[in-house]
């Protein structure tokens, strides 16, 4: 069975398009990149070109509304020049279900063969109802596929389908009955069908794996290049003493193996992919590009940079969790104990815009340990900082709840970052800063495979 086809928006582009379709534009062209894997064929919206009523969207000779030939041609050339896919979209009435009409399909029959010749990339047409979407995608090699869903990758992940999702025919899982009371069997089915990535499975990451597996997320993929050490034992869930005490024939256990142990207990029916390697390697990062959601629980700046790029480039919502504890080495006074949870949204909150990844910190990280010592950097990443399981639990729990409520479209915070201060028990909410000329979140938005990711050399 071939992988399903879907189309993904970032929240801002989607909201803008829907507003234009309600007001002054009868249709639009979406320029999309294409990201394909055995699991999914995703059209990622890169640019939106509204066709204004009476200008680019007119009543044609048949008496039906249509985009002008010039508008179609200009946008087709734009897509062809940039190796984008061309998808037209307009609005139908109705609410929870929609389908392409006979005139829509007839229009596709007339024009898409020639568009395919121009673009050598998928070409399609899509219609919206209020809470539904349907699409007809023509493929360069021949054949047509229907869009299974349109995904809006915002804080609340909206999924627009031709018809409402029906709960599967399988019997409800009694082990998840209590949570199904909150979001129903349909919600459980959504979780079961998701692929979620966790980068880093140390203290925070191990908790995320436990929570996600127990929620019933069907497919988890994790990456971590480290083996468990004695200093991790107090924070990594499911770790055992023998994991960090190597035997004659046994090395210290990879952290991904410890995570797998927890996941298989919590969700025996789930799929668990473990990668005992560095996320920054191109062959590793590639395996996360078809995820539905991403979590970052690792510290290096270069990992943050890559994570941020994937979120915006492949339109995948993400959460970054970090804890910081500082102790004055001379006075032993605890000066800071905080955990920060940050929603990183495609086209929205961005680690680069908010200076959580900076050119200087990246350069500092790249220096050798000897060079860092010689340059007397203050925040030497090789110097251990305090770390506590209870602080990690605060961050992991908040992040997991944002994920759960977001992907089931139940709710989302109206802020982007939350910093919890364990010393005072207070939480500060922040809205992320957004730079309209950001080389990361704006330049890479929906770019898919058309821009290289910042990965280690092959």
């Amino acid at each position, binding site marked *: 069975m071939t992988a399903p086809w879907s189309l993904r928006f970032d929240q801002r582009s989607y909201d803008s398009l829907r507003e234009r379709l309600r007001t002054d534009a009868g249709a639009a062209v979406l320029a999309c990149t294409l990201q394909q894997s055995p699991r999914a064929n995703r059209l990622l919206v890169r640019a939106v070109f509204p066709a204004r009523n009476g200008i680019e969207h007119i009543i044609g000779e048949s008496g039906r509304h249509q985009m002008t030939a010039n508008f179609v041609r200009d946008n087709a050339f734009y897509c062809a020049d940039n190796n984008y896919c061309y998808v037209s979209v307009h609005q139908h009435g109705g609410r929870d279900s929609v389908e392409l009409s006979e005139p829509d399909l007839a229009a596709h029959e007339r024009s898409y063969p020639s568009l395919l010749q121009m673009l050598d990339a998928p070409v399609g047409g899509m219609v919206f109802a209020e809470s539904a979407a349907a699409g007809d995608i023509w493929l360069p090699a021949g054949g047509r596929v229907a869009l299974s869903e349109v995904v809006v990758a915002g804080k609340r992940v909206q999924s627009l389908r031709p018809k409402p999702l029906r709960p599967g025919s399988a019997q409800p899982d009694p082990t998840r009955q209590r949570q199904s009371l909150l979001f129903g069997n349909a919600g459980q089915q959504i979780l079961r069908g998701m692929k979620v990535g966790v980068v880093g499975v140390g203290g925070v990451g191990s908790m995320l794996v436990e929570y996600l597996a127990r929620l019933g997320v069907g497919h988890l993929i994790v990456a971590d290049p480290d083996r468990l050490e004695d200093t991790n034992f107090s924070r990594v869930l499911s770790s055992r003493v023998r994991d960090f005490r190597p035997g004659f024939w046994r090395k210290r256990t990879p952290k991904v193996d410890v995570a797998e142990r927890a996941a298989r207990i919590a969700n025996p029916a789930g799929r668990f992919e473990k990668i005992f390697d560095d996320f920054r390697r191109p062959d590793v990062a590639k395996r996360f590009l078809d995820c539905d959601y991403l979590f970052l629980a690792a510290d290096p*700046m270069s990992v943050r*940079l890559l994570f941020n790029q994937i979120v915006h480039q492949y339109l995948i919502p993400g959460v970054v969790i970090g804890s910081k504890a500082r102790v004055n080495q001379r006075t032993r006074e605890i000066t800071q104990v905080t955990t920060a949870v940050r929603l990183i949204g495609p086209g929205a909150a961005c680690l680069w815009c908010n200076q959580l990844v900076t*050119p200087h910190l*990246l*350069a500092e990280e*790249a220096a050798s340990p000897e060079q860092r010592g010689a*340059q007397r950097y203050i925040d030497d990443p090789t110097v251990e900082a305090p770390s506590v399981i209870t602080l990690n639990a605060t961050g992991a729990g908040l992040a997991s709840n944002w994920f759960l409520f977001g992907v089931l479209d139940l709710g989302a915070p109206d802020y982007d970052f939350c910093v919890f201060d364990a010393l005072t028990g207070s939480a500060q909410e922040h809205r992320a800063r957004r730079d309209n000329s950001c080389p990361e979140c704006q330049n890479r938005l929906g770019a898919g495979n058309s821009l290289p990711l*910042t*990965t*280690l050399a092959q």
Partner: protein
Amino acid sequence: MLVPAVAQAIAELRKQFGDDRVTYDEDGSGGAFTTVHAIELPSPPYNSPTWMSFQIAYTYPAAEIYPVFVRPDLRCDGYTNNAMRAASWRNTAAMQLSLRIINNKRAVDVETAVHKALKVIAWLEAHR
């Protein structure tokens, strides 16, 4: 093996300064320890020519070029200030030029390796 962005940076440096004046060693992650040789500076106060070395990390251009190292006896008069101090670069004595004082740009601006090299030379010429 260099990542494409770093290879491009070295190509641009060679285009600016000449093929035979730019050398590099790979840093093992896709970046490069790069040296621009035979940079002429006003003498006095500088001992000229100098070399200029820096690491171009694999995360370039997101990662800035910092710090920059030159010959340890750069100044004929031995003068140093907050921007210039004795250091070691890859087990070789050097003078480190501090970006934070030379370049007062906003932290998240990005610049090319060529821009950085020319900026350092311009600063040295302006601060005799």
